[in-house]
């Protein structure tokens, strides 16, 4: 797990967590996650449109450029981003686990080469570039985005599975299991698979955070997740800003699972009421649903 150790390190060796810090960390993870996943349930009926960029009148975070309640947009925007990120991470491991386990446990060198070398080659392609390439031909939508993000995560995940599994597979216990005539499945899944759960869990946490960034960035650029889809027609169509708002409002689960500062989130929420740079009034093509049309407004 080279090059990743620094982000989550703690002082001292496996120091026993004080319960206060643990509670803070748990709250930082759970509150945004619950808001993202169950937000649409709390949102209720859309209220009438208000004046753009104003506070008050029951709008906790103010209104956006077409007078919609920003808090409502935040509640709606989180779920697609989180669901796509979770699906992409799961998909990546569904492919990476078998590939990594097989190449770590096989005694045939050519099989390992065939499985791992193509992934080494893929490792060089920048992740956002791959998504943009596909988006230039057709709009991938949420399932397509999940597939793409999973695809760019497979090479790295498979390498880590293989590295962790190869470490376990060279231990005497595995040799003993082999000599006992245990089946490949029992050795690979029952012993090696269970032994690498701990490093894999650590990797999955880091990977999920990275995937969340990637999905949110893609959404910011107008690809994949169309957030803030209130009510088609009545509430305005999908538009790229909801993603920014929801991501800003969410404050990033990355902050949460690394027990970061509490003030950060509230600071981010406070800034989430305006989109800076847009004082254009009329002629602004916000919310027309066209990708990248927002840049013309600045």
């Amino acid at each position, binding site marked *: 797990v080279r090059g990743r150790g*620094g982000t989550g390190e703690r002082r001292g060796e496996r120091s026993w967590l004080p319960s206060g810090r643990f509670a803070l960390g748990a709250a930082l993870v759970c509150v945004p996650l619950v808001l993202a996943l169950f937000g649409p349930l709390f949102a209720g009926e859309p209220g009438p449109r208000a004046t753009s960029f104003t506070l008050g009148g029951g709008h906790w975070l103010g209104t956006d450029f077409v007078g919609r309640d920003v808090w409502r947009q935040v509640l709606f925007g989180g779920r697609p981003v989180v669901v796509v990120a979770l699906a992409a991470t799961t998909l990546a491991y569904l492919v990476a686990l078998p590939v990594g386990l097989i190449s770590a446990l096989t005694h045939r060198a050519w099989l390992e080469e065939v499985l791992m070398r193509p992934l080494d*080659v893929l490792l060089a392609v920048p992740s956002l570039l791959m998504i943009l*390439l596909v988006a230039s031909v057709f709009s991938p939508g949420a399932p397509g985005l999940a597939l793409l993000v999973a695809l760019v995560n497979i090479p790295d995940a498979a390498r880590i599975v293989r590295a962790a599994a190869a470490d376990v597979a060279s231990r005497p216990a595995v040799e003993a299991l082999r000599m006992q005539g245990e089946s490949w499945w029992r050795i690979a899944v029952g012993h090696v698979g269970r032994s690498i759960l701990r490093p894999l869990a650590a990797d999955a946490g880091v990977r999920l955070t990275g995937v969340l960034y990637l999905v949110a960035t893609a959404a910011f650029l107008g690809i994949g997740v169309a957030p803030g889809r209130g009510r088609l027609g009545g509430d305005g169509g999908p538009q790229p800003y909801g993603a920014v708002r929801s991501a800003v409002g969410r404050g*990033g689960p990355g902050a*949460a699972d690394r027990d970061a500062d509490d003030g950060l989130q509230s600071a981010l929420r406070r800034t989430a009421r305006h989109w800076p740079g847009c004082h254009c009034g009329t002629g602004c093509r916000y919310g027309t649903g*066209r990708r990248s049309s927002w*840049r013309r407004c600045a």
Partner: protein
Amino acid sequence: VSGLGSWAARRLLLGGAQTVAVVVLVFALTEALPGDAAVALAGDQPDPARIAAIREALDLDRPAYERLADWATGLPHADFGDSLTSGRPVSSYISDAFGPTLLLAGLTVALLVPVGVGLGVLAARYEGRFVDRLVSSVTLGVYAVPEFAFGVLLVTVFALRLDWLPPTAVGYGTDLLGHPAALVLPVLVLLSRPVCSLSRLVRAGMIDALASPYVAQARRYGIPGARVRYAHALPNAMAPAAQQLARTVDWLLCGVIVVEALFVIPGLGTVLMNAVAERDVPVVQGLAVVFGVITVVLNLGADLVAHRFAPRAEVAA
């Protein structure tokens, strides 16, 4: 255990394979997808004349492998084809937009290493004290914020509330060096996350190194503290950080695209996003190849440097 020469040779070979893979992948993802590419590309305006025009411009009637061969043979001579929307050669798009992107990325990398290493050494020197806690919690917090959200935050505070810096680079064209104030926020946003990860790695490495027997021995000899820190402990603390630097290349490329979109800087990222929005496939392909090859080359260089720092750890090959 192979020597440095054979390792470098294998790494170069992998780099070559990666370049070929990037070219094939770029082509496959944009042109060889199932279905009629011309219909897909026409997108919002699916009238038959436009579909026919796209089909002719891209030579879609010929088999895919012939088009790939034609296109790939043009790449070494910087012949990327012509834009679908404007008819201008793609290479002119790239040469026009290269300057601002290079300036942004160059400035970021030039500042990244001193700032990241400096913060890491500072935190490690005062481990457990106020300075360390401040640096550690700020880097942790900033690390968790995606570039676009951090950019929005900085623009709100420094451009709109305090009015110290321009909010975007609109109106300055490609002459960004003449307006350094417009560069401050974009470079800050680009620096934010890599600096945090780098300084945390350097801090962890420095704390280990400073607690090691050889540093204690150097202190007993009466060697000045600064020399112990920078000449003896730091090189050993740099090994994991050097590998992390290799990984920031991908990050930096994503960051450049986002930051250019956010601050409206007319660089390669903006050209790419516009081409994606207009479904201008030749431009997207050309830029993707440029971005991909730059990534491969930078990764190769970073791996070679990281290998020099930490010959024991095998990097990527």
